[in-house]
C-alpha cells in the first residue's frame, strides 16, 4: 500500500539540505545582503570557529552557492565570499518552500 504524504510534509522533505543547516543558512543570509564579505566578517556574524566556517563554506562552494575570492591586502592573504546567482535562487526557493509548508 502506498502512503500519500500531505503537500506540506512533501515540501518539508524536499527542502534543500545544503541550506537547511542553520550555520549555512546564516552564511547565505549574510552573503545575500552584501556584494562581497570577508572571512573575518562571517566569523563575527556566525560565531563559528575558523574550522567550522571553512567546512560550511566549502560545502556551499561545492553546491555552487558561493564563490571564493582570494586576494592580498599588502602581504596579507584575504579570503572573501560572494553569493552566486544559483545561491540567491536556492535561498529564495528555500524560504518560499518553507513558508509554503507552514499551515495557514
Amino acid at each position: 500500500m502506498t502512503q500519500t504524504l500531505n503537500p506540506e510534509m512533501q515540501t518539508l522533505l524536499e527542502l534543500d539540505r545544503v541550506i537547511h543547516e542553520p550555520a549555512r543558512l546564516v552564511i547565505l543570509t549574510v552573503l545575500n545582503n552584501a556584494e562581497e564579505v570577508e572571512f573575518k566578517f562571517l566569523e563575527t556574524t556566525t560565531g563559528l570557529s575558523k574550522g567550522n566556517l571553512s567546512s560550511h563554506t566549502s560545502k556551499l562552494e561545492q553546491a555552487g552557492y558561493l564563490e571564493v575570492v582570494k586576494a592580498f591586502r599588502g602581504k596579507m592573504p584575504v579570503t572573501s565570499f560572494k553569493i552566486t546567482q544559483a545561491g540567491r535562487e536556492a535561498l529564495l526557493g528555500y524560504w518560499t518552500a518553507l513558508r509554503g509548508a507552514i499551515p495557514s
Partner: protein
Amino acid sequence: MSLDHLEKIQTLTKKYAAYSRTSIGLGYFVAAGLLPILFFAARALPVGVVGAVLGGLLSVASLGLWLWLRQYISSRLYQGFGVALAPKPVFDISFVLGMVLGALLATGLLFLLRSSGLMTFPNTYVFAAPALAIGAVAAWRDTKQHGDILGLTTFLFGGFVGGGINSNADNLTELQRTIQTIMFVAAPILLSSWGIRQHNEFKKLEQEFKTLSGQP
C-alpha cells in the same frame, strides 16, 4: 537560532556593508573640513586661463583627496569586523549621460550669460563645470550612492561658485558677499554634525554586532 535572529543579522549586515563600502559618517566630517579650504582657494584664483586651469585642477584634486581620505577612514574605522561591501547598483548609463549633458548645457548657458553681459563671473567657473561633472561621475561610480554624489557635487560647486564668483564678480553687493562667506563657513558645521551623528550610529551598530556574536 530563530527567525528574529536571522532578520537581525540581515539588517545589521546591510547597515554595516553600507558603512564598510562608503564610510558615510566621518567621511562627511572630512568633506566639511575641505569645504572652506576650497571656498577660499577658489576665491584666490586669478581670472583668465591660468585661473581656469588651476580651478579645474583644484576641483579634481579636492575630489580625489576626499575619496582617498574616505577610503582610509573606511578601512580604519568601519571595517573592524572585516570587509563586507554593500551591493553596487547596476551601472546606470543614463545617469552618467544625464550628468555630462547637464554639465554641457550648464557650461553653454554660462558662456551665453557671460557673453551677453547679463552676468559677470570669472572663466574659472566655466572651465570647472565639465571637470566637476567628470569628477562627479567618477565619484558616483565609486560610491554608488546618489545621496553621496549629490552632496559632494553641491559641495564642490558651492565652493567654486561661492568662492570664484564672490571674489571677482562686480554685481555682488558687500552684503551678498558677506552672506556667502557666512554660508560657506556655516555649512561645514552642519555637515560635520551629520557626519558625527552617522559615526555614532555606527558605534551603536558595532555594539549590536558584538552583542549578537557574544563578544564583550
